[in-house]
């Protein structure tokens, strides 16, 4: 009992920031599960990471303008998605190059925007929040937006689920069935951008791909079918986020400053632990 008390400290369940954080974390992890599985299967983790870096620009701009950071994240992620599609077109190599160039430009711009914000408000809080996130700082007024963007991303992935899966296995198989790959790819990229933006809100722009890729990569080791892989990624994602929130709440009593450790640290560490565990069990299952 005392261990339980130590983990679930008094006030945890009645704290409204914790409640909001739990809802946001669950929504984001659920959205990241299918999008992440497709991203890993398509080998587009790099594109996901680039969107994440670019969203930092949007988050910084939002701070400077005084609007919700989520809006900044979403706008920049979508702009990044559009730009890579336009620049890179068909070829994988071309897309990688376009993504890489964009990524550098995005980070450079956020350096400027964060500098301006810091000078204007004489605080470094914005930089930490944008880059490393703060799920406890998500205001309850942002909740409907989180759910709205999340539902949109899930709807889009569900809509193109079959042609997207087939083209991720082999584009020629999908072409032979007459699936419009350009449209399917675009719909996927939009849902990827939305997921990255939501993830950026939860654990920060720089770390956002961890929540997108980590649970999915672990799930691929554990599950044999696409449906089960998505379910598995969702369970890992939600569990890591919630456990991260609980640990962060506990850490308010921890040294050095009694201010609480960053939630993102806990979430990302737990995702990494799940991934390593999946690697080990997956390998053992394969040898058996």
């Amino acid at each position, binding site marked *: 009992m005392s261990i339980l008390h130590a983990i679930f400290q008094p006030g945890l369940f009645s704290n409204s920031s914790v409640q909001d954080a739990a809802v946001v974390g669950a929504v984001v992890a659920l959205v990241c599960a299918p999008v992440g599985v497709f991203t890993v299967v398509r080998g587009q983790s790099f594109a996901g990471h680039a969107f994440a870096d670019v969203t930092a620009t949007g988050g910084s701009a939002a701070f400077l303008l005084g609007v919700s950071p989520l809006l900044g994240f979403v706008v920049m992620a979508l702009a990044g998605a559009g730009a890579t599609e336009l620049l890179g077109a068909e070829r994988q190599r071309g897309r990688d190059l376009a993504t890489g160039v964009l990524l550098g430009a995005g980070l450079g711009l956020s350096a400027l925007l964060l500098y301006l914000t810091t000078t204007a408000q004489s605080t470094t809080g914005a930089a930490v929040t944008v880059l490393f996130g703060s799920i406890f700082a998500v205001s309850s007024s942002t909740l409907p937006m989180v759910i709205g963007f999340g539902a949109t991303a899930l709807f889009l992935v569900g809509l193109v689920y*079959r042609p997207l899966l087939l083209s991720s*296995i082999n584009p020629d*198989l999908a*072409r032979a*069935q*007459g699936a419009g790959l350009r449209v399917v790819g675009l719909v996927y990229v939009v849902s990827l951008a939305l997921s990255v933006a939501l993830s950026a809100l939860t654990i920060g722009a720089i770390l956002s791909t961890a929540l997108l890729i980590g649970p999915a990569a672990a799930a691929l080791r554990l599950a044999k079918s696409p449906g*089960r892989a998505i379910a598995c990624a969702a369970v890992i994602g939600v569990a890591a986020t919630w456990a991260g929130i609980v640990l962060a709440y506990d850490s308010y009593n921890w040294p050095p400053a009694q201010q609480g450790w960053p939630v993102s640290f806990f979430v990302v560490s737990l995702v990494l632990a799940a991934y390593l565990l999946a690697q080990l069990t997956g390998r053992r299952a394969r040898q058996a």
Partner: protein
Amino acid sequence: MTTSGGPVSADAPTPSGEGPALDVEDLSVWLSGQEILRGVSFSVAAGSLTGLIGENGAGKTTLLRAVLGLLPISSGKVRVARGHLGRHSIGYVPQKVVLDPDLPVRARDLVELGADGRRLGIPMRSGARRALVDQLLQSVDASHLADARVGALSGGEQQRVLIAHALASQPQLLLLDEPLASLDPRSTQETASLLGRIAHERKVGVLLSTHDINPLLPVMDRVVYLAAGRAVSGRTEEVVRSDVLSALYRHHVDVFHAHGRVLVSVGEERSEEGCELDADDCADRESPNGDSLNSDSPDSDSPNGGGGPGGPLPAATVVGPGQS
């Protein structure tokens, strides 16, 4: 025998007597300023298997992709089955499909996607779907692989699952691009006889490309022989002859029969630089006359015992300078 882009003679009626699953008439395809196919004509009867034979670069993949509608046709006609069945009524197994071992996709999932891979929305579980997939997997002798990850299967097993995937839309026409390449001799024979069985039992027209004619001889009803974008078609014994192939290549071609196999040898001098065949083929050509014999996979391995429609010609191999 039909010859396109060369001497023309009357087309012999196909043995099955059914309407053609595919009719290609005077097809030309230009890609980035180059004529890849010129005046190609042939047809594939329902319930028959046609081998599309040619060296690498002869235009086999271009021809298959043009039939699929993935490449624009410069002139000529492509008619698939009776009426307009739309592009997705063609079953297709692409060249060199690489399936990652970590892909969370079972054989069953891949076959299901063959039936409805272009549909929108999340698939609903249904008994009918499951039964269709089970039946398809059974027809390619892959029932036991249904719940295995596709990426973990051997090359031959993957090929069988891909064939079941291609059959799932119940097509009249099945196109396969080099399905026998990179298979071991035993899987090659098994896949070839499986395709023959599928053609005859499901009344599907099967057209498959290969640079090695030998494994197909026991099961092949007709052959379309491609060289430098031109084609000659007919029954194997009508086409795989020195005079016919010499006319196609516009160059002297020898056809040898030895050890139950056939070797097609195109002279060397036409292209000095052109060794674009597989490494083994290049190695074979190092003998002075280019007439080395492949001795893998003796005919006794064949479950059909060489008694198929191939008739007096049990085997043949294409050896010659590569063309780009």
